[in-house]
């Protein structure tokens, strides 16, 4: 029996959790009943009134003028049609860069995030963090007021405190913040530092580019940002670098877009770049690579040095490595990579994971330089806000000073440093030496709990700000809504500390920008708001020269040995990063791209390592129980579920940080295990460890229980050479050696659309558009943003770990991940699976009440109102894309806590929310299709929208442009071109359901030397 109700760590619904007594205490109302109504409650209705008024008065939805009057829409504001969304450009700050976004705004309610096509950091594409941040905005667990010593107080009290406390300009102050690229922020920071002579300011990010920047200092004598240009690269070598994933690179969207663009193959004459990946745990980038070598994290650096040594005989500038030898010098890959690099001079990119040592990054930079990549495929840029010191070292020494009692007041901006600081710093103890501590954060989190003051921070979607993209485009952040829970943005907060008064972010940002814009500020400013960025701006490129001290600086690093025996690696989690997204249900429930685990972090290890430790590497298909492993490193011991990952390096355990949050919110609390205690100032990435079985098991909710293709043809793949020889390799006949049964008979009857069928054709009429989709498996790297974008667009509920563990996940588009080949280092395939919209849909034939039918434009429609929930359609779906509302998931999801209206605001008004007992599934975003058809009918009289005007949510978000969608009756449309591609195939062609969703076969650009 799989009843798991005795597991206290799981909860079926947010309601259930909220009813728990302990929790009730935590979420108790912050104000007496009446006060809430007056000052705090943002009900949908009052909120509409306020927003309506602000738009009506200001004419610009993003202007946050003080609004006292409440006006109904008695006269419709200009540019505003009720029910028609407006789109505003903004940017999402993430660490030290921003990504340009376009936000869909329904009557003043931001609702859906897309990439800004005009912004180079996005190109119209997004990552899971961008997509999910809208739910972060509507998170009812966000802090709603300042807290003084555990007691909620009004913002005015904090303003009073700040103006009196910071009147003393000579006090000794320490600011610790998280990385930001905001020019306004840095302007105020400078003002603060000059106003307070005894102030120190350090930045700490648990996972940052610091080492990469430090590497350029060693290599070129200057702190620079390294920008890879994957679209220009024929050869990419990723050293443990998952640069396509948002948790491993702040510029992942642009990286993915560029890398996959270089691998788009339309005909057999096209070329592809070649990617090598050397890594510890399997990552998205590694799974996408043509060749992958698994090495322990600590072996990456010696491997790179051996490569440099190999190249030193052929390239100048590598004298430091002449004669150098280590255990990898005779490795087969060294020879292969060296040859490849030498034949791709100036057109290759080598990159290393940002958490690796500065010395490794220096060597990588020097290698790129020696290969002639600098200025071509890798450029270096000076960042205006970079300080000329190593921020991490500065942070460490600041904490030491703090411990010595140097600072009276500590101001923490944004960061959850209590959890994320290296364990050996004993930050909590050091902080207790300060008299006053102030913490600005979105959630009253672990750090807030040990500070005298917590100040609630406004979300980026509800506050003014600015920032610089990875390549330096000055971008604005414009609010889409008044702050839901009050709160201060970080610039308003700093300004308050500095001046003692509240100045709106709008004014602060304008102050910064007015200095850089020309005389006609108003006009230029409005253009920038419209575009979301100053399109002229970028970081100037720096031409670099090898630093003389490089040789000396790396000498000590060269002798470093890899860890012998088992080591552990701590990485940011691919869904919740360092923990900052931990309370976003969509991300917690997103299957981890490689393991397909939800709601947990696990200890990843290879089967061989598991056996060595004494853990059974085979996982039962019958239940979710996974053995726990006890890992000890230094003084820290934790117990965590052991997960066997094919392709993981042996003698190595990978852990992801960000879990194990306490007192953060309903979603994050109690999920996973905190692994930050393993990180020390001298071991931020990896450390030697001892592991043993804990002798107990733990339930893990994994959405995919079988990982082998079983020789089936769902994924079809070939090497580039094989494709050139046989461009038709992906066809059914090539794969199986015989024609699709019934095809000959159909062709004899003059029908080329598929095998003969007993049923009347359901192919739609030509006067309607006929929708189809093609997914390029050669582009997909499994990031999962399609799932999150779909979830945001289509109001898909979050159902919690227990329900996911019972295999009831609701996602309309999933990404299947298959392993094939060598179990120790398998090939990995990702396959996004939405509804196939079969022309002869098996689901439609079996529904007893005709709740699922075909539309004239070729959609397999689901009529929720008619559905009685027999689940026969789901059973008869060969692709298993239909989802059933086993419980009233939506109701549970949308009636969370005291003010469910907050989370309800995240719902898309164009999409029905589904009730208990009905089936739901991908609609090809029918609401977008119909919006497009109506617009087209009005504009041109044609029912067929122009190609590219209708985009599904998954297609729009995909940073690899893997998904194409459009009208099949338009022979010139992108989708028709994709369907004509030789690699186009459909799954299960022989059962003659005629899917409208097809796949383009995967290609790999193999090096024949590596087989």
């Amino acid at each position: 029996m799989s009843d798991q109700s005795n597991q206290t760590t799981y909860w079926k619904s947010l309601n259930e959790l909220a009813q728990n007594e302990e929790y009730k205490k935590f979420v108790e109302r912050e104000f007496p009943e009446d006060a809430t109504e007056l000052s705090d409650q943002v009900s949908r209705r009052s909120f509409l009134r306020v927003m309506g008024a602000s738009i009506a008065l200001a004419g610009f939805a993003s202007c946050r003028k003080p609004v006292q009057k409440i006006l109904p829409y008695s006269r419709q504001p200009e540019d505003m049609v009720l029910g028609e969304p407006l789109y505003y450009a903004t940017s999402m700050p993430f660490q030290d860069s921003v990504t340009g976004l376009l936000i869909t705004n329904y009557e003043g309610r931001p609702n859906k995030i897309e990439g800004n096509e005009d912004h180079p950091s996005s190109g119209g594409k997004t990552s899971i963090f961008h997509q999910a941040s809208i739910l972060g905005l509507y998170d009812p667990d966000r802090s709603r007021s300042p807290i003084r010593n555990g007691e909620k107080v009004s913002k005015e009290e904090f303003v009073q405190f700040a103006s009196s406390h910071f009147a003393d300009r000579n006090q000794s102050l320490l600011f610790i913040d998280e990385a930001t690229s905001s020019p306004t922020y840095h302007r105020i920071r400078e003002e603060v530092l000059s106003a307070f002579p005894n102030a120190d300011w350090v930045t700490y990010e648990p996972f940052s580019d610091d080492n990469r920047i430090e590497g350029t200092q060693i290599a070129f004598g200057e702190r620079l940002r390294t920008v890879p240009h994957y679209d220009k690269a024929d050869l990419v070598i990723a050293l443990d670098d998952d640069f396509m994933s948002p948790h491993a690179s702040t510029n992942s969207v642009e990286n993915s877009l560029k890398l996959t663009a270089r691998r788009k193959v339309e005909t057999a004459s096209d070329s592809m770049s070649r990617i090598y990946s050397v890594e510890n745990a399997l990552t998205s980038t590694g799974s996408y690579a043509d060749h992958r070598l698994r090495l322990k994290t600590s072996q990456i650096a010696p491997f790179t040095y051996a490569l440099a040594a190999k190249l030193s005989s052929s390239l100048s500038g590598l004298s430091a490595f002449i004669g150098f030898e280590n255990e990898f010098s005779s490795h087969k890959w060294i020879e292969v990579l060296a040859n490849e690099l030498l034949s791709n001079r100036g057109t290759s990119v080598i990159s290393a994971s940002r958490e690796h040592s500065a010395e490794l990054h220096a060597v990588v930079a020097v290698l790129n330089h020696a290969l002639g990549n600098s200025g071509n495929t890798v450029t270096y840029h000076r960042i205006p806000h970079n300080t000329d010191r190593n921020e991490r070292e500065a942070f460490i020494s600041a904490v030491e000073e703090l411990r010595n009692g140097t600072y009276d007041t500590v101001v923490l901006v944004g960061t959850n440093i209590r959890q994320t600081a290296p364990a050996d710093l004993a930050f909590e103890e050091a902080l207790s030496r300060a008299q006053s501590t102030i913490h600005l954060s979105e959630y009253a989190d672990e750090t807030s709990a040990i500070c005298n003051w917590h100040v609630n921070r406004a979300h980026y979607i509800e506050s003014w700000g600015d920032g610089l993209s990875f390549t330096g485009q000055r971008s604005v952040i414009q609010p889409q809504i008044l702050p839901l829970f009050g709160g201060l943005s970080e610039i308003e907060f700093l300004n308050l500390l500095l001046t003692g008064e509240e100045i709106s972010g709008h004014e602060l940002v304008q102050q910064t920008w007015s200095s850089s814009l020309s005389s006609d500020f108003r006009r230029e400013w409005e253009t920038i708001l419209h575009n979301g960025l100053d399109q002229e701006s970028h970081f100037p490129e720096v031409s670099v020269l090898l630093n003389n001290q490089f040789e000396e600086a790396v000498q000590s690093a060269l002798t470093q040995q890899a860890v012998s025996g088992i080591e552990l690696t701590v990485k940011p989690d691919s869904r919740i990063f360092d923990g900052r997204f931990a309370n976003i249900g969509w991300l917690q429930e997103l299957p981890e791209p490689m393991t397909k685990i939800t709601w947990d972090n696990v200890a990843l290890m290879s089967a061989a390592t598991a056996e060595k430790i004494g853990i059974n590497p085979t996982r039962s298909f019958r239940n979710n129980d996974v053995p726990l492993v006890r890992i000890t490193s230094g003084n820290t011991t934790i117990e965590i579920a052991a997960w066997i990952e094919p392709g993981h390096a042996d003698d190595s355990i990978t852990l992801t940080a960000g879990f194990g949050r306490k007192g953060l919110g309903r979603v994050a609390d109690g999920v996973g295990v905190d692994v930050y205690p393993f990180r020390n100032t001298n071991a931020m990435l990896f450390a030697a460890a001892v592991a043993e079985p804990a002798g107990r098991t733990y339930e893990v909710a994994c959405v995919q229980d079988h990982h082998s293709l079983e020789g089936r043809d769902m994924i079809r793949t070939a090497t580039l050479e094989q494709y050139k020889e046989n461009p038709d390799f992906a066809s059914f006949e090539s794969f199986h050696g015989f024609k699709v049964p019934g095809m000959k008979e159909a062709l004899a009857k003059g029908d080329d659309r598929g095998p003969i069928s007993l049923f009347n054709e359901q192919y739609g009429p030509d006067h309607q558009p006929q929708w189809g989709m093609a997914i390029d498996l050669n582009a997909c790297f499994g990031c999962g943003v399609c799932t999150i974008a779909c979830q945001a667009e289509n109001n898909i509920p979050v159902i919690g770990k227990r329900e996911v563990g019972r295999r009831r996940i609701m996602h309309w588009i999933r990404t299947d991940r298959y392993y094939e080949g060598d179990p120790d280092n398998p090939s990995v395939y990702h396959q996004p699976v939405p509804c196939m919209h079969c022309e002869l849909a098996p689901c439609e034939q079996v529904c007893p009440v005709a709740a699922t039918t075909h539309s004239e434009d070729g959609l397999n429609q689901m009529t929720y109102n008619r559905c009685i929930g027999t689940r026969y359609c789901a059973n008869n779906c060969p692709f298993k894309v239909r989802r059933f509302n086993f419980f009233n998931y939506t109701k549970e999801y949308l009636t969370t806590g005291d003010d469910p209206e907050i989370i309800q605001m995240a719902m898309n008004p164009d999409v029905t929310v589904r009730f208990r007992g009905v089936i739901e599934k991908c609609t090809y975003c029918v609401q977008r299709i119909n919006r497009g058809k109506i617009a087209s009918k009005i504009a041109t009289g044609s029912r067929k929208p122009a190609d590219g005007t209708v985009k599904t949510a998954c297609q729009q978000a995909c940073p690899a442009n893997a998904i194409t969608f459009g009208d099949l009756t338009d022979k010139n449309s992108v989708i028709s071109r994709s369907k004509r591609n030789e690699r186009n195939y459909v799954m299960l062609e022989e059962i003659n359901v005629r899917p409208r969703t097809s796949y383009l076969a995967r290609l790999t650009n193999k090096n024949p030397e590596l087989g």
Partner: protein
Amino acid sequence: MSKTYEYVPEPALVKGNHSFKDITAMVTDINIRPTPTGWYIAFGISNLLLLLLLVSIAWLFWEGTGIWGLNQPVGWGWAIINFVWWVGIGHAGTLISAILFLFRQGWRTAINRFAEAMTIFAVMCAGIFPAIHVGRIWVIYWVFPLPNSMAMWPNFNSPLLWDVFAVSTYFTVSFLFWYVGLVPDLATIRDRIKSKYGKLIYGTFALGWRGSNRHWWNYEKSYMILAGLATPLVLSVHTIVSFDFAVSIIPGWHTTIFPPYFVAGAVFSGFAMVLTLMIIVRKIYGLQDIMTDDHIEKMNIIILVTGSMVGFAYAMEFFIAWYGQVEYEKAIFILRATGPYAWAYWIMIACNVLSPQFFWSKKLRRNVAFTFIISIVVNIGMWFERFVIAVTSLSTDYLPSSWGYYSPTFWDVATYIGTFGLFFTFFLLFLRFLPMIAVAELKGVMPQADPHNYNDKGEFVPPKVEVPQPYTKTS
């Protein structure tokens, strides 16, 4: 020239040389005499189980289908298994009463009433499941073709809709058949019972039966017509139930062998269930002279035949999977035997294919205790057959990525056990208040009903039959 042979007489269908009066008393006294304590105990237990069913259903309606272990990809679990199982059990009753009637199998009269009652109650148990397993029970009436302002009809392509018609027709015809057969016996009880209310109630339901020649004539005709109507239903109902699976495209479901195989399986399980009940009942009520060991043996032969047919079907499924060379079909059959549900598959094979083979032995066929055990084993096996078909096919279908294991929850089990409460509640009421044996019909097959070929002492003297020699040309 001719040769004279003797008839080999069939053993008497009713043993013990009872008179008609004895038989009437033996059967109807059960209904007339005071209720025994044992009946109350059994009825109490059945009621508790019935309560469990009601609670399970109430909780299901309140919480949603999620209380069961269903998931993606296994959208049908115990509910549909139980439905098919109960419907299958029902088949024996109709087969015994209709088909055996048309084939003039006199021995059926000892068990037909009893088996028909079992059919009706089993179909009631079965009918619950398709109704409650839907997500939105409050709109279940949409499966009926009710006229409505939207002119929205059900989807006549869907096997589930065919099920609605098939099962409801089956229930109606079975019920009518049963009731028509009851009329003469209800009149008998009316005549014998002392209680005023008893007379009134039995009299009402006896429809004024006086046993006149015309009554008998009408009765025989209507009984025969109903038997004719019920006969195709025996075959059609389970055929249509099998269409739920066979019409889909899921490997392991999509197979043309299902209709005959399901019907054979249904008869198999139905006879086993009749045996289980009969062996207990004849012991408790002392009816061994009517439900004789000969009956048990005959039924065991049917179990042996149908069990072997089912076994043959299992083998054919494998053969066709290999012969058809459809990758997915091959895979599912191999997975059934070796995959995650191999345990269920081998339970099924052991119970359904191997256990009936013992009945090749005449000694075991006539062994009551052994028969009782095998009859239960067969029904376990048949439950597992439906489990194997429904669950394994869904659990490991086309895309390996969507493969997933299904296990039931407490509520799946409780609902199933609860239906036994419903079944036995009705069955006990039947035993208590209605004649469990068709007395009038039974009398017709007793030796006493055939006054020929008896000598003065009432002993049977087989007639001599003259068989003419075939004509041969002689030169």
